[in-house]
């Protein structure tokens, strides 16, 4: 009996200790917000800090989630009824989440608050579904073309004149690649679907093409610019103007491909400006709008994040208040612009005291206004997955040279996916 009693006591102690430990590690409740890595995380930090400073009772706890797992984690948490109160989401997934009824309708705020209407069009479009509004812009990002001014000088090109058509990209790349074995004219990450929808598709869109279908009845990859851009890429690849490592780059070197300093021209994003300033201050470069087939044609892919309230948020009213606050002059200027991040309100994007002497940032703000964002469902399957028709087309066309077949095959699969 004694042994038994001792055991029972032991078990009870263990159980108590475990229970105490469990309650000890449960964290206190407050308003929560998730944001993905990258530009949005920076924007999230400065805005949440600014909000928390003046509202000690309604503090927001910000959690940065690794980029690639954001959608999985968010979808799981919404399904479990335990989502964060606010979410900063890659804007491209808005249609899927809105269709799945996973976000809270904030049409009333949008109607009452005049600031909603001042937001850059791309964010307004991507945040509405069947006439209702489910979010607004939060942390803008946009693609631009970057060129290395030092290499332009060495190659005898005017360092202040970026390429104005895709054919000029090709011509300039040739001259720069001729500088030496370790110098290349152009760079793109050949196995990275996301990078290429970001920097390659705008070249096509600028040239008048339509890329992604909205539903099974819609058209995809229409317009001569699709073929022209792929042909120029193919030519630059066969002529050795692009580093061989580009073929297998899944995005790991999407940024460093240009920042290394041995590539003349590459598509990149507005995020590169603060990055260059902090990590590569000696590289002399410029940014411009992504060109099309003819002079004057420009575009960009409007990326970045929208902010929304997931269904199941426990602090919905406060979350609505935060979204309203994000669009105020205070948040847009003293939060974002002051820290070198683009505001989402079109009226403040270029016209503010912080950006007056920053011509590069002005370019990205301009790109936001002329850029496009595809409003489609199943973006992940059509574009972002590693086996998507988008990346298959690019690889088959550029590396295998089967351009027409590649476009035809991708078109069929995209329409099939859109119809699901």
């Amino acid at each position: 009996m004694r042994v038994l009693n001792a055991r029972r006591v032991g078990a009870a102690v263990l159980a108590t200790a475990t229970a105490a430990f469990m309650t000890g590690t449960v964290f206190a409740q407050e308003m929560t917000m998730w944001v993905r890595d990258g530009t949005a995380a920076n924007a999230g930090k400065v805005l949440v800090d600014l909000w928390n400073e003046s509202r000690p009772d309604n503090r927001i706890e910000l959690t940065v989630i690794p980029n690639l797992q954001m959608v999985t984690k968010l979808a799981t948490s919404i399904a479990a009824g335990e989502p964060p109160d606010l979410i900063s989401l890659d804007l491209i997934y808005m249609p899927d989440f809105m269709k799945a009824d996973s976000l809270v309708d904030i049409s009333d705020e949008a109607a009452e608050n005049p600031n909603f209407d001042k937001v850059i069009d791309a964010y307004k479009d991507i945040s509405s579904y069947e006439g209702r509004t489910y979010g607004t812009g939060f942390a803008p990002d946009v693609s631009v073309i970057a060129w290395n001014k030092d290499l332009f000088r060495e190659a005898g090109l005017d360092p202040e004149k970026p390429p104005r058509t895709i054919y000029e990209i090709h011509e300039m790349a040739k001259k720069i690649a001729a500088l030496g074995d370790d110098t290349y004219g152009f760079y793109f990450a050949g196995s990275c679907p996301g990078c290429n929808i970001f920097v390659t598709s705008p070249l096509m869109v600028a040239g008048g093409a339509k890329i992604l279908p909205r539903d099974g009845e819609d058209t995809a990859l229409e317009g001569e610019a699709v073929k022209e851009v792929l042909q120029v890429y193919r030519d630059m690849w066969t002529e050795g103007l692009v580093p061989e490592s580009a073929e297998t780059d899944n995005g790991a070197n999407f940024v460093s491909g240009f920042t290394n300093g041995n590539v003349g021209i590459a598509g990149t994003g507005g995020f590169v400006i603060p990055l260059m300033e902090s990590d590569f201050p000696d590289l002399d470069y410029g940014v411009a709008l992504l060109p099309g087939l003819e002079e004057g044609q420009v575009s960009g892919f409007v990326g970045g994040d929208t902010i929304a309230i997931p269904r199941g948020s426990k602090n919905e009213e406060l979350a609505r208040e935060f979204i309203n606050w994000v669009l105020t002059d205070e948040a847009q200027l003293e939060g974002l612009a002051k820290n070198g991040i683009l505001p989402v309100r079109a009226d403040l994007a270029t016209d503010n005291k912080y950006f007056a002497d920053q011509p590069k940032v002005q370019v990205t703000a301009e790109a936001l206004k002329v850029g496009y964002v595809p409003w489609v469902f199943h973006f992940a399957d059509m574009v972002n997955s590693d086996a998507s028709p988008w990346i298959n087309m690019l690889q088959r066309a550029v590396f295998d040279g089967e351009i027409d077949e590649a476009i035809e095959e991708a078109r069929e699969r995209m329409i099939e996916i859109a119809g699901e």
Partner: protein
Amino acid sequence: MSDIPLERGAIGVSTRRVGTRLPARVIVALICWLVIAIMAWPLVMSFLASFKPEAEVAAVPPDYLPHSFSLQSYLKVYGYQAGLPTYLFNSFMVAFLTIVFCLVLAVPAGYGLARFHVPFKEVLFLVLLASMMIPYQALLTPLFLMFTKLGLTNNHVGLAIIHTILQLPFSVYVMRNAFEGIPRELEEAAIVDGCSPLQILGRIFMPLAMPGMVTVSLFAFIMSWNEFLAALIFMSKETAFTLPVLLTGVIDSFYGSVSWGPLQAGVVVSVIPCIAIYFLLQRYYVSGFLSGAVK
């Protein structure tokens, strides 16, 4: 060194002359060094690269030796979000609990399966092993729903339970083999001396199966230390994340591009505990493999 072959020759391993065996030894040594070099090369490169400034570490083609010394990458890893110490603490806590849970469950389970008559024992064992073959990503959502209801998310214990679930089939397998390797005579002798089955487990079997238990602990530690997906899904606060989540976050730049400097620093930081625990338990680890897994 040179007298070793003479000794070997003296005990009759080989009767050839020393002169002909020396080149063979040199070749073997060279092959060994080559294999070691291939294995150690990436780690050494990571180590060196972790001290390069960001512009240098991302250079293509890379330079092997750093031109300048910088702690920039380590500072980035150290100061990321909630700070490295928080993530290290969480990782250690979860790994420790996983080891405890695995041992508490796998030791009796292995003992039962190895030594008792259980109806449909082999079928049960197969079902247990079959669960190793289900990709656990498929289980995460239902588990998450369940754990949310039980209040086990954002919680070290909850994540340790998940890691235990993932690790348990292998652990039971190892413990069963470890117990089966113990001669039945020892068990019979203990019974004759009046031991109950639990006493046999505690006094005879567990000390003898120590290498198996160490193997279970090691694998549980390494799995829990490196596991990423569940750690991300089941934790929703920066202060609760474990080391792999920190590493994924800190190396993640834009559109999947990688910040190479913090990546290398992160590799170095996360590898140190694994190497340390391996050296601490090395002796058990090797014999554990023999008595446990390889049968």
